[in-house]
């Protein structure tokens, strides 16, 4: 129960790392969650699975480069301060 804001930030960084690590052609296409399967029908709303796939794709595209910096900072802080 003793949560701090820092543990929330750590959890968020871990989750975003987990999403960024999912490989497009080795994993996501194999289970049917690839990019080409997200362009579904032209109905009015996409549905939860398509939204999730879009979310994963956008997180991977946007957060790849900033995650390098954030992870490096986190590693250095952990090494220095335990």
């Amino acid at each position, binding site marked *: *129960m*003793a*949560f*701090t804001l820092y*543990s929330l930030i750590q959890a968020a960084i871990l989750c975003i790392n987990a999403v960024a690590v999912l490989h497009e052609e080795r994993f996501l296409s194999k289970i049917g969650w690839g990019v080409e399967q997200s362009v579904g029908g032209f109905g009015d709303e*996409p549905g*939860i699975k398509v*939204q*999730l796939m879009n979310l994963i794709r956008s997180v991977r595209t946007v957060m790849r480069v900033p995650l390098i910096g954030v992870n490096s900072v986190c590693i250095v802080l952990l090494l220095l301060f335990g």
Partner: protein
Amino acid sequence: MDYSAAQSGFRQQHNMRLRNSSVDGPDGGQLFDDTSAAGPANQGVYRNQQAGPQAAGPPGQSFLSDPMSNLAMVYGSSLATQGREMVDKNLDRFIPISKLKYYFAVDTVYVGKKLGILVFPYMHKNWEVSYQQDTPVAPRFDVNAPDLYIPTMAFITYILVAGLALGTQNRFSPELLGVQASSALVWLIMEVLAVLLSLYLVTVNTDLTTIDLVAFSGYKYVGMIIGIIAGLLFGRLAYYLSMLWFCGAIFVFMIRTLRLKLLSEAAAEGKLVRGTRNQLRMYLTMSIAAAQPVFMYWLTYHLIR
């Protein structure tokens, strides 16, 4: 007196700077209006050591009427206003201050009515938020509009009451207040993030902003406070009874408020509209409302022993 000596040294420094900046006139004070004419009389009163208004005059006059110090004061105040404007502009980019002001535009009548609805939402008939030319009306004029005053006050009161509860059980220490505050804040942030994620996944076209969601998540603290106080005063049975009452109240409140915002118009009227989309939205509303009592219990049960 070293005070007047320091003043005269000050004045000589100013005179030297005056000469360097090639100002006409033997005494620079003649170029500007000497508004400190009324000054020395006041300053003579303020000084404890009554050296007479004559001696009190020149030191005060030299400080205020000297053009260099005038210039310095004007420049300093313009720097201060510039700095403040820059801070305001940059702060507005990160935290929308003008939007936040809308949520704090409350008055006592609104707070009283809103607290009444939070405690007893069963009699309230009209839950619609009224609009005024496409912008929502300020909370002062519409009791259904969300505000941030009650959640903020309730959050702070919850932390204080938690400290009180821990103190009556001899478990209190000042760090625990900070721990309670930060963990409650973390749960609030996680709840708002979860609601935002689920709203994105279900593709609901709604005008609920993030701050609205923070406000709605903060309304449950009112019930929590009353539950903890009842538990402190009257024992565990009172705690459970009041938590039961407030869990039901916040459940009904959230469903009735969110129904108008999330569901389509027809479904909000109460008619049964078929289709997976409306069903999904109904489930979403129910789960958001059902998460509130869970949080209420989770955040308070460790305070009542």
